[in-house]
């Protein structure tokens, strides 16, 4: 319930925004349906889903251990440049399966190695991994651009745009029979199932949860904190880089400099809506894939910028936060206002708004009975301002 409600609310509010912008929201949502699912469009949606799902898994691995790996954009591009850089050069000279294997392994390795830096800094010096992973991401983006403009630039002299050569059709990942969905999608789903199994059934899953809940408890149980940080960060980085190489090998076939689809940003809210469960992430990521794939054309058809999709993602995040807050307060049976606020505000307007200046009543004759002393004190309305 708490997973669906924010999405519904976001779609409703997004609809209102569309109205304000002078378009018909029903046309937009009908467009999403049409371009996202009907005809062969669902296949495009699933092709988009492959990298999104693998990135989601990479984020889940890190977030479950309470490690905030925000370097996904850079890591993703590093993985993709391994494919787009090596592919055009190696496919002509080596057997195809071998090149694919090299690219897959290479991207895993690059992703893992790039993530070692924030991991070691965190494990050794306690540096905040949000900052280091972000910074490493910016560096990665720069490095990828330099590579594409330099060493792995398309050797064809007629191509002046900063981009790599295209990988030939026959060397791309094969399609699932009868569709245009490449097997990267299958890989993503299998990985999700494996991750779900590891998380829910194995001893490593328990260790991961203990570590995520409290590093102190993990140490108490005998789990090495440093080792865990490095392992989780590297796995996370490797998966995200894998998503990059699979997207190039299966979908985009070449890479331009400054290409940055920002998949991680889009998939982030859904990872949380899935409560970091790999299995629950599948339908949510599928939903977003359809929405994103259909939304681009739908937005165009009703005259909106395709950036509108990010507005919807942002709205989902906002409503997720609100639903969580309200739900948690309700669970605890607390009010929604900060403690004491109501009384403080009421005190400003209440009858006993007497100024905090102590009037030091000169100790009158002792009132023995408790004859409501408030009436005597408040009956001095001498200095009422306005």
């Amino acid at each position, binding site marked *: 319930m708490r997973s669906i409600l924010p999405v519904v609310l976001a779609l409703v509010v997004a609809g209102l925004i569309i109205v304000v912008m002078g378009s018909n929201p029903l046309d937009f949502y009908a467009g999403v349906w049409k371009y996202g699912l009907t005809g062969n469009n669902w296949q495009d949606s699933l092709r988009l889903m492959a990298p999104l799902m693998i990135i989601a898994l990479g984020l889940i691995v890190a977030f479950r251990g309470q490690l905030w790996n925000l370097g996904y954009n850079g890591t993703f591009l590093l993985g993709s440049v391994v494919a787009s850089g090596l592919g055009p050069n190696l496919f002509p000279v080596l057997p195809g399966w071998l090149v694919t294997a090299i690219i897959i392994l290479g991207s895993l390795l690059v992703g893992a190695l790039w993530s070692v830096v924030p991991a070691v800094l965190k494990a050794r010096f306690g540096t905040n991994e949000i900052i280091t992973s972000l910074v490493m991401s910016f560096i990665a983006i720069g490095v990828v651009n330099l590579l594409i403009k330099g060493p792995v630039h398309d050797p064809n002299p007629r191509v002046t745009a900063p981009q790599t050569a295209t990988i030939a059709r026959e060397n791309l990942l094969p399609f699932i029979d009868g569709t245009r969905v490449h097997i990267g999608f299958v890989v993503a789903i299998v990985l999700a199932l494996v991750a779900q199994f590891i998380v829910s059934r194995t001893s490593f899953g328990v260790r991961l949860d203990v570590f995520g809940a409290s590093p102190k408890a993990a140490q108490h149980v005998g789990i090495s904190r440093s080792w865990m940080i490095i392992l989780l960060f590297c796995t996370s980085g490797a998966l995200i880089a894998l998503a990059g190489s699979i997207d190039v090998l299966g979908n985009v076939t070449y890479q331009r400099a400054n290409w940055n689809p920002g998949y991680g940003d889009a998939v982030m809210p859904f990872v949380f809506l899935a409560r970091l469960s790999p299995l629950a992430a599948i339908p949510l990521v599928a939903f977003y894939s359809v929405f994103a794939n259909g939304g681009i054309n739908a937005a165009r058809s009703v005259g909106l910028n395709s950036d509108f999709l990010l507005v919807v993602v942002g709205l989902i995040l906002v409503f997720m936060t609100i639903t969580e807050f309200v739900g948690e307060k309700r669970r605890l049976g607390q009010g929604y206002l900060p403690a004491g606020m109501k009384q*403080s505000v009421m005190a400003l307007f209440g009858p006993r708004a007497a100024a905090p200046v102590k009037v030091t009543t000169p100790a009158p004759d002792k009132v023995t009975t408790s004859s409501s002393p408030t009436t005597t004190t408040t009956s001095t309305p001498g200095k009422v301002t306005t």
Partner: protein
Amino acid sequence: MSTIAAEPGVISLREITKAFPGVVANDRISLDIVGGQVHCLLGENGAGKSTLISILAGMQQPDSGTILVDGRSTPINSPKAAVDLGIGVVHQHSTLVPAFTVLENLMLGETGVLRNETRAKARLDELSELLGARIDPDALAGDLGLGQQQQVEIAKAMWKGSRLLILDEPTSMLTPQAIEKLAASVAQIKAQGLAVVFITHKLREAYQMGDCVTILRGGKNVGHIGADQLASFSEAQAQRAILAAMFGDDVATPEAADLAGATEAHREVDDIELGTKRVRLELSGVATRGHGHDVDIRDVSLAVHESEILGIAGIDGHGQAALAEVVAGQRSAAQGTIRFDGADITRRGVAGRQQLGLRYVTDDRLHEGTVGGMSVAMNLVLKRIGQRPFWKFGQINRKAVDAEAERLIADYAIKTPSSATRAGTLSGGNIQKVLLARELTDGARFVVVNKPTYGLDLKTVKLVRQILTEFAAEGGAVLLLSTDLDELVELSHRIAVISDGEIVGIVPNDGRGTAERVGQLMTGAIEGTPATEEAHA
């Protein structure tokens, strides 16, 4: 009913009620706090003392009821309102910033734009005189001993001209000598006409320091002994009256008196002949290094025999955590060797030592000892993750886990709706039982326990102590780290004193006067004078 409702100089609570989900912490509590008196609040953990204080300190708002100051209804909406009324609180745990100097700590609440250090120093001098304590304004708060820190806390609470000083369990971490100093300070404050609320769960202190006593039980005010009445009582009479209120109509057994700290503690474990017992755990020259903020241990040599309970006394934060963790294997030893039944285990990790039967009950039950979001069952096997029969070929065997959990829940009488309940929802006492059950099962031969009864209700305290003594009686060895001297005296065969990471002496626990000798070692080590009574164990 009291009729002093409108008297000036009195802070009166009327029908204060505060409920939290599942529990009424304060249930229509009424009491009067009079200037120039020490008002003792007595009650077990969970009786509602802390809630009452936070209401007085403006940190919580009562659901209903009024607070009358000088006879006028005065809402205390915020901590600032409490400070403006002159209500100062000294919390049980230090709220000083360790990296700031004493003076900076005291000036934290100042509101002016510029710091006025001259005035602050003058004020500190004034307060030091009042408290009868010398406080160096430029010392770092983190460098002070606990007793001194407390004096700074009191000064901080009285900084803005206090009229009511609330001391929340101020004696729980002090040596007997420091408690005497505190009592002297309290007497001086009282003489100035200030009101003091003194919270404790030790009856003895209530009688010695208090002018009047209010007893809370289950959130209710169940008994009040006025100043005149208390003065007219003999110690025994007062004791009986208070115990009756604390424990209800049950006969105030000597046991209850014991638990409530009414009498002086005395040893309760059976004698053992150390010479005939084999050494279970031996530390020789062990040191730890560099672990952030807490104190490391230096050159610690200890031997714990089978069937022995070796107590470690010391002021909190003097290396107890490092000692416990280095024994448990959570921290590596930089120097020295650790032997277990003669075998060198210095290089073994937590899991390896746990399998040998070396166990650790941590003092941080909520964040280190248990994972609150996980089920009770999982918490009970937490130290055996991946081991048979709970995990087979890396896959969890939920039946085996649940069976083990049910067994331990029954054995240790853990009160939980089911083994699938989240551990975080259990009460503190039951969480401690979960820890003990987990650590003492499956071939335990030695256990380190750190502050095992801290913050527990009296029944559980008794149970925990019983579990530990039985474990020792059956041949297990116990290293008991505690800041509660009474507890150490009751349970230990010998008591070692740790100070600033070093063992400064070992006192055999034979007969009366152990607490005083331990106290001397503690203060001697802190104030730098050589401890006269050296170890002769």
